[in-house]
């Protein structure tokens, strides 16, 4: 029973961080973030998000350099 809300909040933290990297957040979503998310969740999601962002960039670089090599 206790697992469900935690899962939702983690997804919500991930969504909030995704939108913050873009720099935009819908008012209704933001209001629900403010109520449901804890600082720890946001920081954890932010660190994971930053690592993913770097990984995606490295992936793009890998693709570009390997396509150029062909």
């Amino acid at each position, binding site marked *: 029973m206790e697992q469900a809300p935690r899962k939702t909040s983690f997804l919500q933290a991930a969504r909030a961080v995704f939108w*913050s*990297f*873009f*720099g*935009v*957040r819908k008012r209704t979503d933001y209001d629900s973030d403010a109520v449901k998310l804890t600082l720890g969740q946001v920081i954890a999601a932010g660190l994971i998000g930053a690592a993913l962002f*770097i990984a995606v*960039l490295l992936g793009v670089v890998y693709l570009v*350099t390997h396509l150029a090599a062909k």
Partner: protein
Amino acid sequence: MEATHALDHGHDHGPTTGLMRWVKSTNHKDIGTMYLWFAFIMLFAGGCLALLIRAELFQPGLQIVQPEFFNQLTTLHGLIMVFGAIMPAFVGFANWQVPMMIGAPDMAFPRMNNWSFWLLPVAGGMLIASFFVPGGASAGGWTMYPPLFLQGGISNDMTIFAVHILGVSSIMGAINIVTTILNMRAPGMTLMKMPLFVWTWLITAYLLIAVMPVLAGAVTMLLTDRHFGTHFFNAAGGGDPVMFQHIFWFFGHPEVYIMILPAFGIVSQIIPAFARKPLFGYASMVYATASIAILSFIVWAHHMFTTGMPTSAQLFFMYATMLIAVPTGVKVFNWVATMWRGSMTFETPMLFAIGFVCLFTIGGFTGLVLAITPVDIQLQDTYYVVAHFHYVLVSGALYAIFAGVYFWLPKWTGHMYDEKLGKWHFWLSTIFFNILFFPMHFLGLAGMPRRIPDYALQFADFNAMATVGAFGFGLSQLILLVVVLKCIKGGEKAAGHTWEGAESLEWTHLSSPPPYHSFVIPPNVK
């Protein structure tokens, strides 16, 4: 009730008089004032160095200074403006404004606040004094790159020491600001109700705590290379000078955001006040600021595309740098959307804020141009780069400082500033600023290198134009000095709520000037 009454009276005293008021002050307003005056003095000191540079560059050939001294001028101009003018000015704003905006009585650590200010004149004095030691001041550029920096005289040690002291001051200031914001907000002032200026300073303070030790480490390694036989950056001993550049710019790029995020905060207070509308997308502004801060840690090597790195690294840093434009663009759109259909008036703070939005955007765009690796390899160390970062730091950071000074002067002094002089200051600054820096784009595209006192004949006209702009811009700043002095001396009385569109606590709850000890009893924020 009686207890609070007694508490109120217990703290209802003014400042002590005389010099000791300033030496021993633990009051955030006094310390803020000292920070701002220090920054203003250093602005004029750094400005005089810039005018000497421009005077030499008025014509081709060497007329006024020798090349060695020219290098000292460019180095100290950079160091003084970055560490002596822009950063202390923003800390001055933080000292004055943060406690009043969150409903706190003072900063969290008032004695540490005094100490972090009084370190500054020592470091600033040491930088200026280094001109007078044998060999003259540091001449290797504000970035202190080895091997040049390993070779200079005692002035390089003075610069290292000054940078250490400035770093300690910044870290103490940042800890103070973070603690104040997180622990001393009035009841009801939740994080997401804080004025955006407070948010930008909270994020900036974290950036400072993260990167100032990196700079301290880099200059300590320079020091041990110079005097204690290490070879961190000395290729002859197995070291790597390029490693210094990586460490320096790991500090240096977040440093750029340390100088611009508080500017975003000031502009985000002013535009809603004069558009008489709430800031468009407050939450997205907070998120965008946080994103910019995080991204600022993964773009550093765009400063060193030409020093040698694998293609994959060049691509990574190019993509990351270009992506940082997204949250920055969100901010610009939010400011424009705030103004859209607002009841706008154009008092001096608003003029400088709009000037900021327009001119900073030009600086941002040229930054995007420089982010493209092959273009940067062409433009590295040309005047295009000089034009780019002056559009970011002068019409960006400095314009926001001017805007903030005009905005809060009535609050700080209790008197209205001279609006007519303020407008003169804005228009003359803006016209001369563009005459000064816009031609530098053309000079850079045509290949004129920076940090060189002489140049080929084809660059003469644009250089002459830039020098005229420089003297015009420099002299225009004297208007601000007159405005500030007039405002301190007297003038029309300012109302507590000077700008009816401004909604933060210092306007709605405090008189102008505010009491020496404000918010002894915290306000209730709804």
